[in-house]
């Protein structure tokens, strides 16, 4: 059984705004009947103000599809069209206190229904670029289409690279066989042969030649080649902390884009204690985010740095 939040259950058992709105002037039909989830969103928009006066949904789908539809209608009522369009699928999922990874597509469907209905109201043609494949990585909800496209676009050739680019395979690792199969197919398509990484410690050798960054952010002054000269003993503690702060500052926009943030708590030798806050705290990907921060710090400081959550800091 799915691990649905109480909020999802509440919106499924007692959905709000079920049924079509009378005198609707914006209608969005999205979904895929073969996948078993489809949604019609009807909006009543006040033409002068573009405020959504009423919203209703009709959904063919599972519990979370119905709950996402119900949540969407609650969220958009009273907003202007432009305000409503700011709602992301993550906002819908957050409104419901989260969705299981296999069910995140229900929130995507909600957002697309909204875009379609607004386009319909404005007399525009809405075409979606939605493409969905079978779920490959359950830890991070990455599907086959995403993995294939990323392999193609970046000429990836190892599971580690796929993990670094898409996060797929970075959790429990049970999907590595599936990723290897996708690599085999995609590499064959570009005339290459997939060579699996050696097992055990030998693995490290292969990845040396290329170091794809986990979080793609430009860090000012983070030229790894130049950094070592200034490293190790060359900096005072204050200088070190300032430099660490600089690195974190540079990463902040990317974290904030995902509604998260990071704060520096303490520096103890090579160990840097940080707090992930906002959406980052409790996020399944927190460990990966920390890994990305660590990598950036290592590059910038030119020495090995260990990034540890502040919660694990020994009591003073």
């Amino acid at each position, binding site marked *: 059984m799915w691990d649905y939040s109480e909020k999802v259950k509440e919106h*499924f*058992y007692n*959905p709000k705004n*079920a*049924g079509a709105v009378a005198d609707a002037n914006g209608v969005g*039909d*999205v*979904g*895929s*009947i*073969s*996948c*078993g*989830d*489809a*949604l*019609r969103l009807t909006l009543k928009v006040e033409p002068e103000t573009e405020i959504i006066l009423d919203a209703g*949904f*009709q*959904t*063919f*789908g*599972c*519990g*979370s*599809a*119905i709950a996402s539809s119900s949540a969407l209608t609650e969220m958009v009522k009273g907003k202007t069209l432009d305000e409503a369009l700011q709602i992301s699928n993550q906002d819908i999922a957050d409104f419901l206190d989260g969705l299981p990874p*296999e*069910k995140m597509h229900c929130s995507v469907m909600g957002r697309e229904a909204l875009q379609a209905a607004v386009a319909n109201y404005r007399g525009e043609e809405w*075409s*979606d*670029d*939605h*493409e*969905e*494949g*079978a*779920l490959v990585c359950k830890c991070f909800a990455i599907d086959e289409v995403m993995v294939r496209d990323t392999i193609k676009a970046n000429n990836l050739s190892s599971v580690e690279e796929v993990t670094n680019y898409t996060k797929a395979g970075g959790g429990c690792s049970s999907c590595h066989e599936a990723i290897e199969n996708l690599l085999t197919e995609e590499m064959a398509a570009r005339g290459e042969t997939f060579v699996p990484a050696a097992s055990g410690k030998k693995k490290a050798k292969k990845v040396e030649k290329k170091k794809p960054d986990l979080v793609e952010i430009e860090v000012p002054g983070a030229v790894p080649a130049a950094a070592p000269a200034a490293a190790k003993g060359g900096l005072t503690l204050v200088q070190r902390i300032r430099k660490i702060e600089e690195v974190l500052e540079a990463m902040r926009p990317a974290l904030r884009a995902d509604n998260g943030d990071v704060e520096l708590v303490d520096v103890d030798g090579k160990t840097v204690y940080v707090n992930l806050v906002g959406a980052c705290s409790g996020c399944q990907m927190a460990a990966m985010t920390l890994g990305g921060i660590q990598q950036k710090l290592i590059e910038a400081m030119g020495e090995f740095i260990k990034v540890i959550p502040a919660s694990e800091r020994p009591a003073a």
Partner: protein
Amino acid sequence: MSDIYLDNNATTMVDPAIVDAMLPFFTEQFGNPSSLHSFGNKVGMALKKARGQVQKILGAEHDSEIIFTSCGSESDSTAILSALKANPERKEIITTVVEHPAVLNLCEYLETEGYIVHKLKVDSKGRLDLDEYAKLLTDEVAVVSVMWANNETGTIFPVEKMAEMADEAGILFHTDAVQAVGKIPMNLQDTAIHMLSLSGHKLHAPKGVGVLYLKRGTRFRPLLRGGHQERGRRAGTENAASIVGLGLACEQAMEHMEFENVQVKAMRDRLQEGILAAVPNAFPTGDVDNRLPNTLNIAFEYIEGEAILLLMNKMGIAASSGSACTSGSLEPSHVMKAMGIPYTAAHGTVRFSLSRYNTMDEVERVIEAVPPIVAKLRKLSPYWGENGPVENPEQAFAPVYA
């Protein structure tokens, strides 16, 4: 009111008498059955008794034809991989499109290893075409694997006939009978079936124990090699307590075979009639005249199965569905697809599978509960109007993703 369990094709309750019979094998009867001393010997005797009980329900000629395994899937994999190992020059497999994933996913993997897998198609009622089958029986085929009864619809396949056809062509025949054992009387010694899979937890024994029946003289290559357990055909210390439980479960199933085919069938038939009388735009799937006595699969059009299950669960009724969402896949049940059931109905299929522990009173409660649930969900459905499906539902609402 207690909850109603109608998901017995998924798994069954362990009968209390079976639990009692198993308990000593966790405490004083802890010996290794392979040991010479009396601690082990007593357990060895208990396994022998259980082997005899399984032999009886299958109608096997010898008790040495019974190999205890960990589950139905292990039995399936052992049988198919053994046939391939024993016939390395043969590179083809015959199975059906509606097999359980235990067989189907293995076959799909074997395709990547260079084997050719022929999947027999089914018609709209889930029936096979034996002429198509006959044409495929060539010297290239190493093994045929066809389920005795389908887990989703209960549809029964003519495996005894199909085994004979394979045997005449000199081909090994395996059947996954995990849903059939205990519901269909069997006498394997009179059939040409070479291998058969059985799963304990489908007939009120615990999970984690199964059987591979291997007709004497069938060429065999073990999956697990190691110790001499199961006459060297399945290494690994025996799951003694569960095997004892499975033995007793087989004995009980024999005793209840008639009850299953009369009373349980009557409850199933009443459930079907009651629901269909109250719910429009619903139909049973599969071969309704030739199916397991306990299984009923109904397609409720224009709504989705997981939503039905969640609302039923809230009322204390347990069943299962062939919708994509319940499995986390992108497609509805492969069985429904194979029968050509349209998506608007395939996603709304619900399987009710009964057991001898259900009562007619429970069936009446389910008949009361289901129609309002269906009506509630149809009210939310874009395919449903005031009192029925909208006109030309497929055109009236046609969302399309790229």
